[in-house]
């Protein structure tokens, strides 16, 4: 734990010896007014970003702020609807990743870009990456004995990310764009990555660095551009104590409202809770992802789950939904132990799962009605004629309840994202599921819809249903939940009653830090998450 922070400190020290003139020259990359719409969703509205030579530039923003979208636009993977991009002062027309590469821009995207069926060597050939520098970088990045004839599919995700980085480094790009490079890495690998990135900056090359980890940002970056809801809200120099300000910019006006009592939505009188829990999970285990997860979910309760990306929450929800089989531990519904081998088993036990990615949950070319009524037909004995009147009643009551905009109900894909999201929930309202697992249901939807969903979840709780609610927006926790479970490194590290769950406290817990007073945010830079070091291979 200590050692890690020392390393950071040393890198930081090295940094000060750099030529200060480098930072004052003309921007290497300069983007202004970038906008991108996906149908009704505005991924980017007005983003700008200016990167100087030799700078490590952080790109920050909450989930869905548009960071990845900006990276994809800058590197030609998608085309912007509007905006101007200058590279070395000239208007660039980067139409494809290949063109970006030629212009000296190299990305490491959030999703691995190695071809799964090719071995590492072939992946290098495919992109014209020189092998020897690549090997050198891989060693440098802390993987001493890589077999470059291994197929990408067989390589663990963390290593794959590092290889992606080494592949980018090997061609000595002028601008390296790293999208949550460290999110999936164990501490020792992350450290090496940071070290390398730092040196990259020192040697006069630029890096655009995206991360949700303040430790990394403050240890590494010179400046940060902060995005909120698709627009750039500010550029700051990184200096001690700046974290507070960045959090403020990222969250915007919302930070003002975080006092515990104020934002509570509907349902001030929680339903009477039974003594025995609806769902109780004990010692749940799954590969390297879940270690010993235990918690209870009461009737009429909304329990929030808070975790950083990739801490095992996806696997937890999938296991509870019957989508994957846990390796160990027990799940009990109403006190009776259950084993799920298929989602239909979970559904029979009254557990419904609303995945975060709505494209996973919806038949996009079918109507709203069919999507909502889908679970009714699942079992073979329900394959017969549909009781149309009954169905229309149930479906329209669910639609009414969620106020789904049905003007384009013929095909779900024509609905707005928020309305699509509502359909995924309406399905289980119609089916009258007793336990609902909601995985980040407000991802990428507008403020009004969010409010409706909060209200709905409270109402469900009022009706005695149990809701497990993962959210990546901490602010939501206080609006919706009765209780918060914080997961870190595949373990439940803390449980808050909602009264204590203000954003700074949650954020701290989510980063694996012990509970503390608000003024202590400064210690972020000194402490590394405990289990990260343990997770190292």
């Amino acid at each position, binding site marked *: 734990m200590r050692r890690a922070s020392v390393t950071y400190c040393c890198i930081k020290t090295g940094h000060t010896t750099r030529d200060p003139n480098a930072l004052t020259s003309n921007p290497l990359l300069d983007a202004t007014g970038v906008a991108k719409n*996906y*149908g*009704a*969703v505005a991924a980017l509205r007005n983003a700008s970003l200016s990167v100087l030579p030799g700078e490590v530039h952080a790109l920050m923003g909450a989930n869905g702020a548009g960071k990845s979208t900006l990276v994809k636009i800058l590197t030609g993977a998608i085309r912007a609807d509007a905006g101007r991009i200058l590279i070395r002062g000239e208007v660039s027309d980067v139409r494809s990743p290949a063109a970006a590469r030629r212009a000296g821009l190299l990305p490491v995207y959030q999703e691995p870009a190695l071809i799964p069926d090719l071995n590492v060597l072939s992946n290098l050939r495919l992109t014209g990456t020189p092998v020897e520098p690549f090997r050198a970088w891989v060693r440098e990045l802390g993987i001493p004995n890589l077999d470059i004839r291994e197929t990408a599919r067989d390589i663990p995700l963390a290593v794959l990310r590092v290889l992606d980085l080494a592949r980018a480094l090997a061609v000595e790009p002028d601008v390296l764009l790293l999208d949550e490079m460290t999110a999936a890495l164990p501490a020792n690998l992350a450290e090496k990555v940071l070290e390398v990135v730092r040196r990259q900056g020192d040697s006069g090359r630029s890096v655009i660095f995206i991360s949700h980890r303040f430790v990394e940002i403050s240890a590494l970056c010179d400046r940060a551009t902060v995005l909120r809801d698709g627009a750039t809200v500010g550029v700051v120099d990184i200096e001690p104590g700046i974290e507070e300000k960045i959090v403020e910019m990222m969250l915007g006006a919302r930070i003002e409202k975080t006092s515990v009592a104020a934002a509570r939505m509907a349902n001030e009188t929680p339903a009477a809770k039974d003594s025995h829990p609806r769902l109780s999970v004990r010692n749940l285990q799954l590969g390297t992802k879940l270690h010993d997860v235990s918690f209870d979910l009461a009737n009429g309760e909304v329990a929030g789950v808070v975790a950083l990306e990739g801490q095992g929450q996806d696997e937890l929800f999938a296991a509870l*939904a019957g*989508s994957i089989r846990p390796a160990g531990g027990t799940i009990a519904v109403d006190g009776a132990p259950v084993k799920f081998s*298929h*989602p*239909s088993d979970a*559904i*029979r036990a009254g557990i419904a*799962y609303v*995945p975060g990615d709505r*494209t*996973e*949950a*919806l*038949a*996009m*070319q*079918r109507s709203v009605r*069919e999507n909502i*009524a*889908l*679970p*009714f*037909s*699942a*079992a*073979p004995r*329900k*394959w*017969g*004629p*549909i009781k*149309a009147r009954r169905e229309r009643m149930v479906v329209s009551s669910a639609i009414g309840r969620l106020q789904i*905009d049905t*003007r*384009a109900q*013929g095909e779900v*894909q*024509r*609905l*707005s*994202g928020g309305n699509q999201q509502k359909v995924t929930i309406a*399905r289980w309202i119609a089916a009258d599921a007793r336990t609902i697992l909601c995985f980040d249901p407000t991802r990428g939807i507008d403020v009004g819809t969010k409010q409706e969903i909060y209200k709905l979840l409270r109402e469900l709780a009022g009706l005695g249903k149990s809701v497990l609610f993962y959210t990546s927006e901490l602010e939501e926790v206080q609006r919706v939940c009765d209780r918060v479970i914080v997961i870190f490194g595949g373990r439940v590290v803390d449980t808050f009653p909602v009264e204590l769950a203000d954003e700074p406290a949650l954020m701290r817990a989510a980063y694996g830090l012990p509970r503390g007073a608000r003024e202590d945010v400064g210690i972020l830079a000194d402490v590394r998450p405990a289990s990260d070091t343990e997770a190292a291979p």
Partner: protein
Amino acid sequence: MTNSATLPQPAPFGRRLKRFMADRPIIPLIILLVILVMILQILRPGIVNERWIANTAKFAIPLAILAGCQTMTMLTGGIDLSVGTVATMSAFIMATQIVNQDPAVACVLAMLPALLIGLVNGIGVGVFRVHPLIMTLGTSLIGTGFLQVYQRTVIASGARIPDFLNWLGTGLTYGFPNALFLFVPVAVLIVFTLNRTGFGRLLYAVGDNEHAARLSGVRYWQVVTALYVISSLLAGITGLLYIGLIKAPSLSLAEPLVLPSVAAAVIGGTSIFGGRGGYMGTIIGALILTVLTTLLTILHMPEGGRRILFGFIVLFVTAAYLRIIEDR
């Protein structure tokens, strides 16, 4: 994936027309069919009469039923290449068993291989996840082999076409082919199944997004097994109808209908990737192909030229149709 369709905006006429067509994909198809018929009428004035329509219907019907099998399997992202063999088997078995069996028994015997092949296809695709193309190709090879072995054992007894199949296949009632007595209920049933039953829903859902269906509690193998059994049984029934129409049992009777049945479903707007399409379009697709065949027969053209034309028309129709319905 997400469209701007929800934003109301005044659109030029062309766009509105396109939107209109995209919402009712059957209309451009019908227009296409009418155009083909008109071309036919121009080339051979007087050909389009009551009799010709009845004939076209007679030949379109078996094709349309087999194309129904393809439509349903394609909705799930599959394909059933064994329909030709299954239809041939049931036709051949019917024609040979009727000689010394009760018609009811002969019917059951004729449908037995259909049931079996459907079951094997379904289990292979649904449980073992074998690619439907390979699975159905394999079972059709095996079926053909069995048919050849079977044929040898019945050569001595000869073959006969039972009267009721004869009536069904070629008879006319008030100028309408009797085959409609079979086809109308079958078509209604397929359309009803696809639109108004839980099973139909699942076909679309599984083909559109198997993962979503799974999360809704749908067990893939159940749906797929039922599907391939139904497809096979329909093919078997088609075989019986077809033998009544052609009246000569042979070991490759319905084989020439297989590729056209796929083409009819595709022309009718069913996506080969699953999740999109319907049976009404397929019926029009089958009619288009039948008329096209007549058209090419009528043309004074070398056989090679006809085939080239056929290929280009199929490609053109599909591409044009995709453009019309793809609404963006």
